[in-house]
């Protein structure tokens, strides 16, 4: 199978629990070897989508195809889908090796093969020396690794991680993000991570699906997601931004002029004159002083937050609007609180979103 061929295809899956629509016609196509993250706020349906793929929740409508096979009505134990649960769900009555061997044992694999596979999986997660341990005698980070080893030992067609790192403390979590990505790439696994942590999503994945209220708002590479958010929700959920509300004055071929309380601004977007919109830009696009052919606004510095390589400056632009700029010492002196300053940013990095889409 070629690298670009669709490996996991979710076609228009919907799921309701009582009156709430938890999944609303979800489409998702993942290539073999791809690492994709479902990113979204709590309750947006990430876990439900994962469970539908694993066969643990039956969707009301739609289809799931895996490795060229329609698995919509296949029970979970015949899907060959690996799941790493948030709580790990390691079997407490089995040892570390017993847990990792479980999937192979129930498949009737020969003892010699099982032993070799367990050894391989445990050495991948660097836990070979703990094979005989009881689960209750492991730290949280070690349990996480055992859960991973148990899932990869059976060589599933796709690996699903439901907030699998969220129980770890921050430092360990950040180490695991990098290590897990490398490990999954090494074994050429196809994987879906679920998280509500944008940093985790950007670190771990080839593509990120931003979910909101049972829908995928945008599926894109991390860089594109940040630079070209498809919706106000995606813009808000990933990274920081300046957002100013206004009304479209004139529209011209993908560009709009917007009247706002901080002055007239130009932005990319297709709207009719008179539409209420939100104009947005990423903080690193904002520069001190004027630039030609650029948007600009003035105000009084409200706060200055030093963050190492960069400094976040929040400016009160009056009329309840504020500007957020990420400035660097290299580009000149950082203003101080209460300074009156003017900021400008390129029109090509300014986006307009429909107002009513605000969550």
């Amino acid at each position, binding site marked *: 199978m070629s690298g670009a061929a669709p490996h996991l295809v979710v076609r228009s899956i919907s799921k309701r629990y009582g009156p709430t629509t938890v999944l609303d016609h979800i489409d998702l196509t993942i290539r073999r070897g791809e690492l994709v993250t479902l990113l979204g706020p709590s309750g947006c349906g990430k876990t439900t989508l994962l469970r539908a793929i694993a066969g*643990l929740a039956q969707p009301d409508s739609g289809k799931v195809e895996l490795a060229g096979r329609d698995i919509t009505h296949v029970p979970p*134990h015949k899907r060959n889908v*690996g799941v790493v649960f948030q709580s790990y769900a390691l079997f407490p009555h089995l040892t570390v090796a017993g847990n990792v061997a479980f999937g192979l044992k*129930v498949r009737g694999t020969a003892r010699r093969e099982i032993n070799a596979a367990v050894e391989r999986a445990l050495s991948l997660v660097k836990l070979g020396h703990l094979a005989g341990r009881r689960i209750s005698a492991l730290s949280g980070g070690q349990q996480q690794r055992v859960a991973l080893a148990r899932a990869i030992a059976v060589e599933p067609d796709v690996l699903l991680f439901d907030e699998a790192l969220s129980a770890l403390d921050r430092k360990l979590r950040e180490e695991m993000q990098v290590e897990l990505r490398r490990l999954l790439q090494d074994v050429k696994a196809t994987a879906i991570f679920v998280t509500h942590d944008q940093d985790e999503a950007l670190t771990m994945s080839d593509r990120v699906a931003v979910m909101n209220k049972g829908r995928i708002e945008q599926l894109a590479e991390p860089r594109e997601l940040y630079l070209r958010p498809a919706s106000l929700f995606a813009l808000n959920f990933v990274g920081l931004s300046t957002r100013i509300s206004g009304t479209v004055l004139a529209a011209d071929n993908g560009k709009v002029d917007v009247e706002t309380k901080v002055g007239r601004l130009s932005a990319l977007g297709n709207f009719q004159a008179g539409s209420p919109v939100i104009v947005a830009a990423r903080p690193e696009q904002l520069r001190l002083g004027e630039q030609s052919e650029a948007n600009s606004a003035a105000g009084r510095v409200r706060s200055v937050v030093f963050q190492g390589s960069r400094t976040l400056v929040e400016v009160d632009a009056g009329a309840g609007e504020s500007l957020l700029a990420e400035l660097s010492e290299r580009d000149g002196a950082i203003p101080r609180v209460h300074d009156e300053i003017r900021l400008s940013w390129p029109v090509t990095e300014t986006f307009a979103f429909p107002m009513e889409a605000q969550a």
Partner: protein
Amino acid sequence: MTEAALPAPVAAPAVDRERLTAIGFVLPSFVIIAGVFALPLVLLLGVSVIDANGLTFANYRRLLGTPYYLGVIWNSLRLGLLTTIIAFLISYPAAFALARAHGALRSVLLATLFLPLAASVIVKAFAWTILLRSDGIVNETLIALGIIEDPIRMIFTETALIVGAVNIFLPFMILPIYAIVAQLDPRYAEAASTLGASPIVTFFHVILPLTLPGIIAGVALVFSLSVSAYVVPTLLIGEKYPTLATTIAKAYLLAREPGFGAAAGVVLLGIAIAVVALSARLSREPK
């Protein structure tokens, strides 16, 4: 000099006080158990091996050497085993149903389990005799419906005994199993299924081992209760099914043979202790 020696005397009383407190907490229960339980046990043991002429094992020889009394021991074991096995077969699925039930249904089901515990065993056993008598409700109903012509003999049969014992001791099997099942994380079964285990394999390799502590507790409770039951066999089957418990009562109350009664008591206790010890051993975590 004095300064250097200070830390030690300060630390030592602290530790001693802790230990004293612990002893203080344990002491009352120790006194009660020693006085009410251990002492009578020692006396029981003593009575069973000492008679007017000194040390003797005659009581044990009679108990373990006569076919009649071996039959009595077997009756007790049989009552214990049958009651335990049947109670387990009913309780295990019932505990799952109870754990799956929600809201009012769960409260009602739990109440039907707990309320009978408030009634004395005598009352419940007697209620069974009323149901199963030749002119009891069951026979009257069957006759009225024309299913049978003459009353079926139900009371004073082994079936009546086992049915009654299972009914009376059932809560002691369901409750410990339910306590474990209610806490069982459904993720375990889900994890097993995603690893390729069919529902049956998941049951035997995951659910059953994880609920084993509840099963062991229930089995130990019901077996020790039913193997030593006195009221239930007395009321539901009577003379023709002598058990260790009824034999003990007879030895003390009718035959005036306290030595023999004590020996039977020691054997019964030995059986119960063996079962409890075995289950404690089984429920210990694997290494």
